[in-house]
């Protein structure tokens, strides 16, 4: 390849990876002398058409020997990719633009108050076992997560689905307790997948039987999984590989090595330290997509000194966010503004000024609180997020300039969520984020919630939360959520220094859609059904 060819190839790669639009590409290509052929080169890169064939080998982190095909227990990438992107489908999926679109559902119609939702199911869809998918399967699959004995990670989501009844074999009616305009998103939860029910309304999850793009051939928890294409898959342009071989590679260095030596075609979660080196390797692309994952420092606002908002504001101004993104995330992320809604999500408050590291303001707020200095303790372990201990030290150093003395208490990562988080007044934490503003606020910020880690209770916020949920008018909803983000940012009990990008790597032999989904790693955890070999 000549130098010029290589340059244009690099530009095309950026287009394919979603890092460059048509206008930018044509401008750059024309400057390099490709005057007549620039548009064709662009469309070649942007609209590569899926081809069938090949064995897709992927290396995943986040696998363990306790994994199972029951989606109620799924919580990390290996199982989410295998279940949601592989052998099963949900009623609704989130597309690359972050919109909820019907998957096994055909349509979702709300009543005027968004309290009753009629969901029509796709007809003629078959499970791998040959059984036809219908309303009984859907009800059994959803009820699996509810009830007193449920240990499902989706228990609270499933409980919010209200009363579920069927209206004929292909229609479900959901009667919610209060209106929810985001209802379709709830059904896209990666736990709420459809399995085939037996006569008694139970689903045999362990069989792996689903409607998904690939059929499970073998599965060894925490080690590997092997799947073959479902020839009857209902989505067009999907399920392009002949086979999929998933390998559990929990060690980040081993995962990078497997990718660098070509033993796998793609990996999830690059090691950020060595990602720039992998990027230099020809034939491999590091894929960066901004998502909803964010790191946080929740304070228990019921306890002194965090019960004083001035102290919280002082602490929010005492963190160097730029340094945080550049060192902890090695640049693979963006600044947080002390609320949990990321810039690529609907209703993001883009006009809210970006909070900066500001020693004078931090001092000013301390003065408002009647303090000249502040001594606080924070607990951190790398279980909270990768590099949490170092990151918190960095925070501590930056805050010193404002007279804030943060003592970093390094605790054991084992049992962190059980013993430390929400148990001590201030700790490090992460959230993978939720697809909608309402969902994120409800699970992490609503007063009295199980996971409201700041124990925050704000009357106006609660009022807006209820109003926003049932509001079907987009403009009004936007107003509500912007105000909520402003309240959380200025009065909430959580420091949100940054949003982390999803950073994966893939071989250039793989074809990918022009725009990748950011709701999960590896194209929204759906590379298995969406990608192909060129």
């Amino acid at each position, binding site marked *: 390849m000549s130098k010029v060819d290589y340059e244009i190839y690099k530009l095309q790669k950026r287009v394919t990876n979603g890092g460059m639009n048509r206008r930018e590409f044509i401008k750059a290509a024309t400057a390099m002398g490709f005057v007549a052929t620039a548009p064709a080169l662009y469309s070649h890169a942007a609209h590569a058409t899926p081809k069938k064939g090949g064995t897709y080998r992927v*290396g995943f982190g986040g696998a*363990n*020997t*306790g*994994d*199972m095909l029951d989606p109620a*227990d799924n*919580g990390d990438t290996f199982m989410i990719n295998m279940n949601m992107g592989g052998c099963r489908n949900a009623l609704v999926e989130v597309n690359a633009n972050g919109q909820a679109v019907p998957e096994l559902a055909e349509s979702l119609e709300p009543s005027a108050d968004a309290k009753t939702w009629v969901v029509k199911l796709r007809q003629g869809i078959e499970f791998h076992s040959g059984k036809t998918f219908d309303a009984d399967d859907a009800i059994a699959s959803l009820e699996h997560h509810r009830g*007193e*004995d*449920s*240990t*499902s*990670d989706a*228990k*609270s989501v499933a409980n919010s689905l209200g009363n579920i009844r069927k209206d004929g074999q292909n229609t479900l009616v959901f009667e919610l307790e209060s209106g929810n305009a985001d209802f379709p998103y709830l059904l896209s939860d990666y736990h709420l997948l459809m399995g085939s029910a037996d006569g008694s309304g139970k689903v045999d999850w362990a069989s792996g039987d689903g409607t998904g793009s690939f059929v499970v051939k073998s599965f*060894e*928890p*925490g*080690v*590997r999984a092997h799947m073959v294409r479902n020839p009857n898959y209902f989505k067009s342009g999907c399920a392009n590989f002949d086979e999929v071989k998933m*390998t*559990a*590679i*929990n*060690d980040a*260095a*081993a995962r990078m*090595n*497997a990718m*660098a*030596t070509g*033993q796998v075609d793609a990996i999830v979660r690059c090691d950020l330290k060595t990602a720039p080196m992998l990027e230099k390797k020809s034939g491999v692309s590091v894929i960066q997509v901004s998502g909803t994952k964010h790191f946080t420092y929740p304070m228990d606002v019921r306890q002194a000194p965090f019960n004083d908002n001035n102290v919280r504001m002082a602490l929010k101004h005492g963190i160097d966010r730029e340094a945080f993104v550049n060192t902890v995330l090695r640049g693979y992320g963006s600044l947080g503004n002390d609320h949990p809604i990321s810039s690529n999500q609907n209703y993001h408050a883009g006009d809210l000024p970006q909070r900066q590291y500001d020693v004078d303001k931090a001092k000013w707020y301390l003065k408002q609180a009647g303090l000249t200095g502040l001594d606080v303790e924070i607990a951190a372990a790398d279980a909270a997020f990768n590099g949490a201990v170092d990151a918190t030290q960095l925070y501590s150093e930056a805050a010193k300039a404002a007279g804030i003395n943060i003592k970093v208490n390094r605790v054991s990562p*084992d*049992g962190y*969520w*059980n*013993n430390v*988080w929400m148990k001590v007044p201030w700790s490090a*934490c992460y959230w993978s984020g939720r697809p909608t503003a309402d969902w994120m606020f409800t699970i992490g910020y609503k007063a009295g919630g*199980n*996971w409201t880690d700041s124990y925050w209770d704000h009357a106006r916020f609660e009022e807006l939360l209820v109003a926003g949920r049932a509001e079907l008018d987009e403009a009004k909803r936007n107003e509500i959520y912007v105000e909520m983000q402003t309240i959380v940012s200025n009065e909430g009990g959580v420091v949100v220094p940054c949003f982390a990008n999803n950073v994966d790597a893939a071989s250039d032999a793989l074809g990918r859609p022009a725009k990748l989904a950011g709701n999960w790693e590896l194209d929204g955890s759906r590379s298995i059904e969406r990608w192909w070999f060129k």
Partner: protein
Amino acid sequence: MQNSLLRLVLRRLALGVLTLIAISLLITVGVEALSGDVCTAMMGQMASEDKVAACHRALNLDRPVHLRYIEWLVNFAQGDMGKALTNHREVVDVIGNRIGNTFFLAIASALIAIPISLALGIVAALYRNSLFDRSISMITLSGVSVPDFFIAYILMAIFAVSFGIFPAISNVDDTMALSERIVASALPVLTLTLAVSAHMMRMTRASIVSLMASPYIEMAKLKGVKPGRIIVFHALPNAWSPIIQVIMLNLAWLVVGVVIVEVVFVYPGLGALMIDAVFLRDMPIVRATAMIFASVYVILNLLADILSMASNPRLMHPK
């Protein structure tokens, strides 16, 4: 003589069973002492009181620990290892998949490491204090001084990344032919060989050298026996005992101590399984793997003693 050997074996086996029971008790107490249990470990950040309570009910974890332990012991004595608490797979199946991998790795490494270190030890003793002796000592001692994961990464950088001879991850499975399996496990085997050779080689050399000043060696020298012959036929038979002990110790380590190498090479062995199970507080798997590891130690120690006796006429025929 056979009687004394038989008595020793029986006594040691009985002691071994007691050891196993003591270890199972220690492991149980140890894992119970850790914070949380399998339910909170599985749910992690998303745990809530009602879910944890439901999980305890489902897994029968609301009963006191000593009752659960006794029940396990009774079942284990009857050969029933129970089911994993996390995904309810039979422990026999979970372990069955991996035990072969672990022993394959240990045996393959031992097959290379033992003959090489014995031979090097003998040659080093023969040419002791020569340049050869010193360089062999230096090389093997460097191998044992560097942490095994570092050796692993160095080998990976050379053989997988630069030259691409062997794969960087050793993702072995049951469907592989022996030749494929050997290629796939080449780097972990090489890493382990480097890690254990020094100890065995140094012990061989030291125990031979310590005998070289004995009167009967002096006698052999005066008779004009060649140095090589003196070492192999006169010194070595009397040096076996400590060498065997060290070999067995290293064999046991090859089975139970290779977790880091398993993680680095993504090798599906028992060590990584046990670590996973401890993190998840999956007691049946923790206990089962602990029993296997403990048995390996008990059996290899017994074997070492029997072989030491067999190699030592004075122990074989006590006055």
